[in-house]
């Protein structure tokens, strides 16, 4: 699967889309869902919660294992996707469509420091060795 070029990525396998209003939409990558396998449980952060960069703020669980999802940058959670909580398998079916939460970053410049598609692809390739 080719990585969407318009997204930013984290070393902990989240993808981040910068919306027109500067808010961020966050999900987990195809690679992350592929490693975890069939998703059966999603726990999202509550809107209004403030998080620091790299803070554990959501959990995805597959049949196999539980995995933390981290805030890509510091900010405030503005929305959580109830649809993926009700149907966690959507993350397997459409990882870049099945977003988990939205947030407003404290410092928009911090987003620029995240990986681009090429950088993330290199990271995944390096992990495979």
């Amino acid at each position: 699967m080719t990585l969407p070029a318009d997204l930013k990525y984290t070393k902990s396998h989240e993808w981040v889309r910068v919306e027109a209003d500067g808010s961020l939409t966050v999900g987990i990558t195809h690679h992350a869902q592929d490693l975890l396998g069939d998703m059966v449980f999603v726990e999202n952060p509550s809107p209004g919660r403030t998080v620091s960069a790299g803070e554990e703020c959501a959990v995805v669980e597959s049949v196999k294992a539980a995995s933390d999802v981290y805030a890509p940058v510091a900010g405030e959670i503005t929305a959580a996707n109830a649809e993926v909580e009700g149907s966690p398998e959507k993350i397997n079916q459409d990882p870049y469509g099945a977003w988990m939460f939205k947030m407003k970053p404290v410092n928009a410049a911090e987003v620029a420091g995240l990986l681009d598609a090429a950088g993330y692809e290199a990271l995944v390739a390096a992990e495979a060795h």
Partner: protein
Amino acid sequence: MLKQTPLHAVHRELGAKMVDFGGWDMPVNYGSQIEEHHAVRRACGIFDVSHMLPVDVKGEGMRVFLKRLVANNVDKLKTPGKALYSCMLNEQGGVIDDLIIYFMDEQWFRIVVNAGTAEKDLAWMQRCNAEWGANLGLTPRRDLAMIAIQGPQAAAVLHGAMPGSEQMTEGLKPFNAVNVGEMFVARTGYTGEDGYEVMVPAKSAPFFWKALLEAGAKPAGLGARDTLRLEAGMNLYGQDMDETVSPLESGLAWTVDLKSERDFVGRKALEASEITRQLVGLVLLDKGVLRAHQKVHTKHGAGEITSGTFSPTLQQSIALARIPLGIAPGEEVEVEVRDKKLQAKVVKYPFVRNGKALI
């Protein structure tokens, strides 16, 4: 270097995701673990279980040896082909391994042991063989491959894949085996469904596997094998019991024969021990997934989950847990899941048998 079964190349061809399982490079799934799980409950799935080790025991006085070696009583094996599930204990009453003993005839018993414990088990058996002067032949059969064919359509699949096998399995009752030529067929399994575990020479395994797929079976990996066995309430060695715990605190009292006068290894320790814990089933009432090693709080003290997962059949999380005695089915307990305490209900397991929910 990971060990490979005779079907390793076949798994790769099928695009399996491989994992290190006790030193073996094994398929965890071929795509979706949940679909493989449902295939076994509803139709038929096949598993490569060639990492498990058959050990053939031959010679005079085998029964005397086995009556001392294992906690269940091989005198229950009266008719040829009959199988017995048992624990092999150490002197402290801890579980060295759980295994299946097939009584083929008075000159031949076949013991199938777990993959991760195979070398340890074999060394233990050889030591007992020497120390007790039993003088038996103990032959590990790494030249065999083992395929588990499981599900309500297992018989049709086996017969479709191997014309002539109908006669072989006709009248074969659960927990019995038959050997014809180079093929050993046991009506056993680890899924809670009808099915067979078939041993064939390693070189025949890829052909046999492909014939089973052509006859309608779906390949299933160790991931589905684990969720199926847990729904079926079957213990997993290394998780639900090991050398440090008693079978009597692991839900395995039914496999320990204390009625006969036999002096089996571990018996004295078991009889001297005080039983304070029990293995129970848990069903999670809140949302989330129970996992091994999560702490369980009961009104009589703390315990621990030994195996936990999401049950694809029940669509909720289930677990086996070792908790203090005196907590009965129907009572609620609390499980620590990350920073939360979730409610779970104690139930009698198995959770699922023959495709049907039992809880």
